[in-house]
């Protein structure tokens, strides 16, 4: 347990709440990027003798990707697709914040039921990583635009990374690297897809995509 770890984890938690309350897409991208850098540093906050060279490489890779490459791709998508600056939440910001707090409470409760076999970077790491994960999922569900779903996806990934980093085992970092690669491809593809959707349909509202669904079979067909 060290105080620096606690400090970083608490900042990550506050960033989640900030994310839920911010109305601008650019701010959201910046928040998720900053969170990515902070979480990327997590494995390096351990005792010096525990740090392996592999961990440094994977951490720096994730910092570069999440802190710089993804934001750049997303900013570019925002710019090229002429996305309006608002986030468009379903329930409104106060409700989002309230749910964010509830998510944190739930995560705390969940983490008390975990059995730890190893000392953690911070005793807050597990609940905050759950909270980040669920906040990401909540953002995917509650925001209308396709680009905010990418951001939610990134937040979700941050949560997974934090969990792995907190437990500090090399295997989990390997898994993490694989996930990172997935996310990279996903952001890349979604960036392109968003651009094309907006060019074809003049909007990237996922609700309107539901018009593409199968029509419900009418009674006469039976």
């Amino acid at each position, binding site marked *: 347990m060290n105080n620096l770890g606690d400090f970083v984890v608490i900042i990550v938690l506050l960033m989640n709440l900030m994310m839920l309350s911010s109305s601008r897409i650019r701010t959201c991208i910046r928040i998720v990027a900053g969170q990515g850098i902070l979480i990327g540093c997590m494995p390096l906050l351990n005792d010096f003798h525990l740090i392996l060279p592999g961990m440094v490489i994977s951490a720096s890779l994730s910092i570069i990707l999440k802190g710089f490459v993804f934001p750049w791709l997303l900013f570019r998508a925002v710019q090229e697709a002429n996305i309006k600056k608002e986030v468009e939440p379903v329930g409104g910001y106060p409700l989002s914040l309230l749910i964010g707090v509830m998510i944190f409470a739930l995560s705390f409760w969940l983490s008390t039921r*975990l059995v730890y076999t190893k000392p953690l970077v911070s005793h807050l790491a597990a609940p905050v990583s759950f909270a980040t994960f669920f906040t990401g*999922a909540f953002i995917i*569900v509650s925001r209308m635009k396709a680009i905010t779903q990418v951001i939610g996806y990134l937040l979700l990934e941050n949560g997974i990374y934090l969990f792995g980093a907190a437990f500090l085992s090399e295997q989990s970092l390997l898994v993490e690297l694989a996930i990172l690669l997935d996310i990279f491809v996903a952001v890349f593809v979604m960036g392109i897809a968003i651009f094309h959707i907006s060019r074809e349909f003049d909007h990237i509202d996922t*609700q309107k995509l*539901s018009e*593409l*669904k199968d029509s*419900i079979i009418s*009674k006469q067909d039976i």
Partner: protein
Amino acid sequence: MQIVFYSLTILIVSGLLALCLNRFFKPANFIGALGAISGCIVGLISLFIVYNNPASAVLTIPWTVPYGSLSLAMDNLGILFLFLIFIVSALSALYGMESLRCYSGKKNIGSLWLFFNLLIASMVFIVLARNAILFLLAWEMMAISSFFLVVFAGEKKAVAKAGLIYLIATHIGTLFLLVMFGLLGNSSGSFDFSSWKIAPSGFMPSIIFLCALIGFGTKSGFMPMHIWLPETYPAAPNNVAAVLSGVMSKTGIYGLIRILTFLGMPCSWWGYLLIAMGIISGILGILFALAQHDLKRLLAYSSIENIGIISIGMGVGILGMSTHNPVLMVLGFSGSLLHVINHAFFKALLFLGAGAVLDKTQTMEMDVLGGLFKKMPITGISFLIGAAAICGLPPLNGFISEFLIYLAAFKGILGAGSIVFVSLGIIAALALIGAVAVACFTKVFGIIFLGQPRSVLSLEARDPGILMRISMLILAFCCFFIGLAAPFMVNGFAVIIAEVSGTQMMIEYTLAEVIQPLRYIVSGSLLLYGFILLLVFIRWLLLRGRRIESALTWDCGYAKPSPKMQYTASSFAQPIVNFFKGILRTKKHASKINEYFPDSFGFKTETADLFSEKVFNPMLKSVHDLTEKLTWVQHGQLQIYILYILFTLLALFIWKL
């Protein structure tokens, strides 16, 4: 045994080749049909070899599929069914080579031949398979390839609907088979048939039997599970319908008999259940057949009737097994097996005959046909033979198998207890079925082939080409031949019945007793043939040197008789249909006459399927209504779907932590 693989290879390769040549109609048609025929001939050769050298009948090849093993075997029961599959399929292919020419330029004939050959191959695999996984694979193959054959003319709405009904029905059947094989495998720890010889104890055999009855019964068309049949057979191309009805439905019977061999001593109520289902299928099947106007639909209902007769025979056999009554067992099983053979031949013949009529007149509506006997004599004669055989009239094959079941029932009356009443029921039911069958096929033959043409459609009809005629004539000859060769064939059943019942219990002795009356019947048949020949000779003698001209029959002095005044299909069947109107629920549509001199008047009867209307449609409707209340779950909003995933994840998380 390996030779059977050559046959399967020929079938599959020629099918694929036909598919590759899809763009060229004639070569594709030729290669597909030739492959099917030669594959079947090679298969018949392999049957002959295995029959003479039973040691070569088993083949096991390791297979990487979990729980599966490529173990194949050919016993006498299998040889009987394979024989039918090869002969009927080969003749249908020969017929199809010519009859399918009507699709030239309209359809991808290559796909039809691919699925036709795959259907034959999968049926062969079903009979050979000695492993549950392999069996189910082949079963599913058969279901899918036959589905594609049924929807071959899928641009018509009725055909597409028939295909859908068939697909659903066959998969419901497969579901029960899965359960059945699961139970069998679970109680023995292996999915190989060879390890199932020990009978499972308790009420397990009964559950397995019920699953088999529903699963295989759906494929065969036992009465409550038959609803796909009257839709599917009319939709399929003619030669395909012959294979579907002639042999594919028999794979269900095969499966049922095969499963019986694993269940040890059967309970007597299985026999009673089979007899009851057989009686219901037989009586209702033939009654609904009588009320139809579409020839192929009528034949489909008559298939249900014949499956009913087969089922009665099997029920009697099982009853004999469970009550240790060898006479009942031998008579029941041999009657039902012989009827399987007979039905394969005469139903295929009738479907091919119907196909020839359809090919030349473009309609299956009986009321617009008529007088075809003069125009297509070969088709007419072979159809007549098939119709006489299916009614169970004496000199032909149908009589022998029904006679065996009658004989079983009469022997049963001499027994004691409930068997007496059941036997009385069987005799009454068979008598009713036979009588209505005669009425039904008199109607078919009379309306279509006799009288005057009712429309221009039947004016220009003529006999089809040589290939179609040959395949029909061969099948007609088979009906004759079995009628005469029955004593020898029934003798051959001794081995099969011993295989099925697992005992030698006086089988030879009982069969010898049965064969004696059969010999009398055959001599009687020969006398009858002689008498018929004599009549033909006398007719020739009388007509010699006289002029033959056609004239009107006496028409009660009516001034302007027209072909429309003949008996129609509805009017011919009306007395019997009226008598059973409580069951048939025939709807009559007549236009009202308001004036004294009306220009036109229309009258139509329509008989919908009882079980479709009263059982399945209401059931499906209630399921539909129920599921419609859940459509709010499927709203198509991405976010909410993700929410579902999230909640599931959360619930699992909370549950596991």
